[in-house]
């Protein structure tokens, strides 16, 4: 989820877009990112090759009973606790949905129609490759030197042998992709997610990852080295990234629109679960899962009414 770093690139002295910048593309693709395609894509895009998560590094079988994770886990927050600004968030969701249907989705689908999928996949790998330096930075901050070195090696190999990242040669050589961002780094050191947010022109977030994205934007080595969004490269990168993310998310967004009974709640759930899984990659903490045997208590009637009042259906 790197593209919004470009949107908030506001370093003093940065050049503004020049006349030659393909503004229409930049505008459309900025909206694409802004409408949450990128955020959603992060929730559904192929995850990096699984690190041998400490939570999945198994102890010898005979230790099973003794080492099993205790069944009693902390109670997950309720919908009202994790989404205290639900009225505002749902309004933003409706607004972004309108813009997506009117502008962004048609652009993304036109791109998908006229661009052969091998080219789209190649561009997607270029986008991913440009994230590697930021992964180096955050993996280092997280105290994960192996991941940092691997991301650095991947960037060097794929940028050269892989023709600017079009081909993921490094994966074939056994250097699987991992990802790291500053929201994950904050989570690694115990910073709580804070409330859920759905922002106009931005999409799903939580407070911690919103801060993380601002920091990622300000510290992205590629952006620092190339002049940020003010440069032609920065604008082009933003456009390609946004288009790739929105196109990648298209099938999933369509499925949610058709299958979910409350798409807002589904996107929120998927986004928050995905971010939790990203942080667990860094911490190795076991996953907190609900009990399948024992459904939760119905809240008191007053709380049910309050929740219903806050939750206006969008579709």
């Amino acid at each position, binding site marked *: 989820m790197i593209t919004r770093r470009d949107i908030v690139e506001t370093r003093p002295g940065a050049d503004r877009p020049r006349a030659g910048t393909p503004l229409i593309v930049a505008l459309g693709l900025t909206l694409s990112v802004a409408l949450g395609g990128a955020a959603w894509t992060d929730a559904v895009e192929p995850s990096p090759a699984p690190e041998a998560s400490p939570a999945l590094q198994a*102890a010898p079988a005979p230790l099973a009973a003794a080492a099993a994770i205790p069944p009693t886990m902390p109670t997950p927050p309720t919908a009202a606790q994790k989404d205290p600004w639900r009225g505002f968030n749902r309004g933003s969701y409706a607004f972004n949905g309108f813009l997506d249907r009117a502008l962004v989705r048609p652009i993304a689908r036109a791109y998908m129609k006229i661009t052969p999928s091998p080219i789209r996949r190649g561009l997607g790998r270029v986008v991913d490759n440009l994230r590697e330096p930021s992964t180096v930075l955050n993996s280092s901050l997280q105290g994960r*030197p192996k991941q940092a070195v691997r991301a650095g090696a991947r960037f060097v190999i794929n940028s050269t042998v892989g023709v600017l990242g079009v081909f993921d040669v490094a994966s074939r050589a056994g250097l699987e992709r991992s990802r790291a961002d500053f929201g994950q780094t904050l989570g690694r050191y115990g910073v709580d997610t804070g409330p859920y947010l759905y922002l106009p022109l931005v999409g799903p977030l939580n407070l911690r990852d919103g801060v993380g994205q601002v920091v990622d934007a300000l510290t992205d080595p590629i952006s620092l080295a190339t002049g940020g969004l003010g440069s032609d490269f920065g604008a082009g990168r933003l456009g390609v990234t946004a288009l790739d993310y929105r196109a990648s998310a298209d099938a999933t967004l369509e499925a949610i629109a058709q299958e979910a009974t409350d798409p807002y709640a589904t996107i929120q759930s998927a986004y928050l679960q995905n971010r939790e899984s990203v942080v667990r990659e860094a911490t190795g903490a076991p996953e907190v899962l609900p009990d399948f045997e024992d459904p939760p208590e119905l809240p008191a009637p007053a709380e049910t009414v309050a929740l*219903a009042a806050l939750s206006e259906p969008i579709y």
Partner: protein
Amino acid sequence: MPPAPARRHLLTRLGGVLALAGLAAAARAQPAARRSARSPEAEAFVAVQAQKVLSVLADRSLSLGQKQQAFRRLIDQIADVPKITNFVLGKYARSIEPTQRARFNTVFRTYAETVYQTRISEFRGETLKVTGSVARTPGDVVVASLVLGGGRDPIPVSWRVLGAGAAWKVVDVQIRGVWLAITQQQDFVSTIDNAGGDIGVLIAQLQRNSRT
């Protein structure tokens, strides 16, 4: 073109901060990993049964109708449908009327078959490799796997299974960090909340969505 002095200065400082932070982090950071038990029985169950699902969906000799029938049979064999049906109702599982529950069971079954088949069919033509498991309790295990092939990066898929010995049932599937049943529960509960607690609204919505 070499970086401008101001930018070079910034990069140098960034590098210094990074090195210091990395050292400090490495010194203090021992991942909060807890070594957890592995369940070979649950892993074997997933390795065999999940591969069956992928194979059915990949079988080009079957028509769509035949695939759907085979998928339905497999779901009955390997998934704990009653538990899933109860789980997705969340807090409303305790208050639903028996007649509504009967209607919900039927409607959800149709809806879930459509949704799960669509999700899992994304992986057609690919193979499954079990990579580990975590026994949350001896009878509640999350089995991690990778779906390989299809000319793309391996996709991590986890299977939550309940049971013992050779008798296991799947209750949830996690694709790319997102659990399907948990997501459905939050979707459904939100829909019922929005309707002021009226489960009938959810049932009607599921009927509409199953037809699309």
